[in-house]
């Protein structure tokens, strides 16, 4: 009995000191997360020579001039402008995300609703390939693209999204916990065909999980540098946003820092706005990843 009071009073004593320490560390870490982006923003408003001298905390008045330099065609850092790069990224990312969540849901639906002979085999297979990284098969992917005439096009960056094992995994988990097979039965009795049942009855019920997976699919595709920089290497006007950022840096010769920071700033802004709007869903989506087994 004595042990309880000793230990738990110690706890209470510790708590007194712990609180300020915990707050301080948490706030410092938050500042550490924000600081580089704050410097990025400030530097995008400063003149190149001022940026070189050190860190500044107050925005300058070179915002428009830096933007002008970045988007001026005669002094362009890359063959595509920042907005064209963003458009290129959207052209890839939007259809890729839609295909990814649609077909991952369809695959997960098939594995949950139907009892067919090789169901467990198919599921075990999808589970196993989750761990295979795409980077290791790039030589073969180049081969496939050149044989099918897709090298230098957006197709090999869009179509593979149909086979996203991790998304299938999450959709299946969601369906197992919160999708009732009775609804499918009811639709059958009403005479709905299987494909229509999936499209008109299952999809609306899967929407919350699809939305979370769509965010992560979109971000992964948007941020991808490796595959596009290999498959679009010869197509300068098809450069994506991360490739534009790479080009910004590669432009060593006339290094205007104001221009570079402006380019980086524009590349960060859409994701950051989307993040703060959707952060609630994103954080709970990340948490889902951990509760996996």
């Amino acid at each position: 009995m004595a042990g309880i009071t000793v230990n738990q009073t110690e706890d209470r004593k510790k708590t007194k000191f712990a609180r300020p320490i915990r707050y301080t560390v948490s706030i410092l870490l938050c500042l550490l997360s924000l600081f580089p982006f704050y410097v990025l923003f400030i530097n995008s408003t400063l003149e190149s020579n001022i940026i070189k001298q050190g860190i500044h905390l107050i925005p300058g008045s070179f915002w428009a001039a830096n933007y002008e330099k970045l988007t001026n065609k005669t002094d362009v850092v890359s063959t595509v402008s920042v907005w064209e790069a963003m458009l290129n990224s959207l052209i890839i990312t939007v259809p890729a995300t839609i295909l990814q969540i649609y077909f991952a849901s369809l695959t997960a639906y098939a594995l949950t609703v139907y009892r067919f002979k090789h169901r467990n085999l198919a599921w075990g297979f999808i589970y196993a390939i989750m761990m295979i990284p795409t980077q290791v098969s790039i030589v073969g992917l180049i081969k496939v693209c050149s044989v099918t005439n897709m090298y230098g096009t957006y197709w090999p960056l869009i179509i593979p999204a149909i086979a996203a094992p991790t998304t299938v995994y999450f959709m299946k988990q969601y369906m197992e916990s919160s999708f009732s097979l009775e609804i499918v039965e009811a639709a059958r009795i009403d005479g709905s065909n299987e494909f229509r049942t999936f499209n008109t009855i299952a999809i609306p019920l899967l929407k919350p999980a699809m939305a979370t997976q769509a965010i992560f699919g979109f971000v992964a595709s948007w941020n991808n540098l490796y595959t596009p920089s290999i498959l679009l290497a010869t197509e300068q006007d098809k450069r994506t946003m991360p490739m534009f950022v790479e080009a910004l840096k590669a432009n060593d010769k006339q290094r205007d820092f104001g221009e570079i920071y402006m380019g980086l700033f524009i590349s960060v802004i859409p994701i950051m706005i989307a993040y703060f709007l959707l952060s609630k869903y994103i954080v709970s989506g990340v948490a889902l990843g951990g509760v996996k087994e």
Partner: protein
Amino acid sequence: MNKIKRKTVEYGKYGYYFIIPFFLVFIVFQLYPLLYTFYTSLLQVQKVGRNSSEVVFCLGNFTDYVFKQGNEFWPAAGVTVVLWILNFVPQVALSLLLAAWFTDAHNKLKGQGAYKVIMYMPNIITAATIAVLFFSLFDVHGSITGILRNMGVVVGEDSILTHGPASFFIIAFIQFWMWYGNTMIVLIAGIMGISPSLYEAAMVDGASGTQQFWLITLPLLKPIIQFTLVTSAIGGLQMYDIPKLFNNGKPLVNVGNTTIESTRTIVMLIKQYVDAGSKQNYGRAAAYSVVLFAMTLVVSLVFYALTSEKKEKRA
């Protein structure tokens, strides 16, 4: 009974129909490329006479470029693995600490939602942008270099990135900084999943907060920490964006009596031999890919072994 059975069989075929797109695309864009990469790794271009060469089916790409003394593969593998360890160990330590704080029932911190959102943020921003941002800060004309120059750490037209281990540590730091928020959220979810009755029982028995953490939280978090470890290791082995755009493998550093590119990872090496130009060598790139695949496989198998061992114990 009969009727039901017939019905199941009838509908079962839709299961096959609906998984066709996934498997078709998987075969064309992932399985075939993987097998073709294996095949290519066994094809070596060898010189025949002065101006001609032929493709020979052999293990030459492995013996010449992977297992030969003084090759560039193992330094790159070493860089990749050490970069991963340097970011993962502090990442898990800090994430665990924060997760323990944020789930402490006796000592609820305010503003947790905001901390999580802000600490996770670097993870979602384009890695390419983050790498170029940090490079621009530490480069010869960078803002931080300006400060270091005033302090006398950097002299003249130089920066800490041109020599020494600074680039290496900054890359490890960037990875750490981008990922600890993610790991923290995962661990918090894990701790929240632990039954509160365990803690209540421990409290009745007089366990202190610290004891509860070491004796309840940590053992029960083990599967999640293992899972984080494996996904992080697999991702870490494929590290590319940050080291590539931060300092492109530079600077050259002497380790023992060899000079190596101190921040060049395996995937950067693969890309180097895939890119068009005089260095292009698909066989060599494929051989590196195969070894990387094998390394990844070993990590996954160790993980599966660990988790299945646990299942047996449970049963």
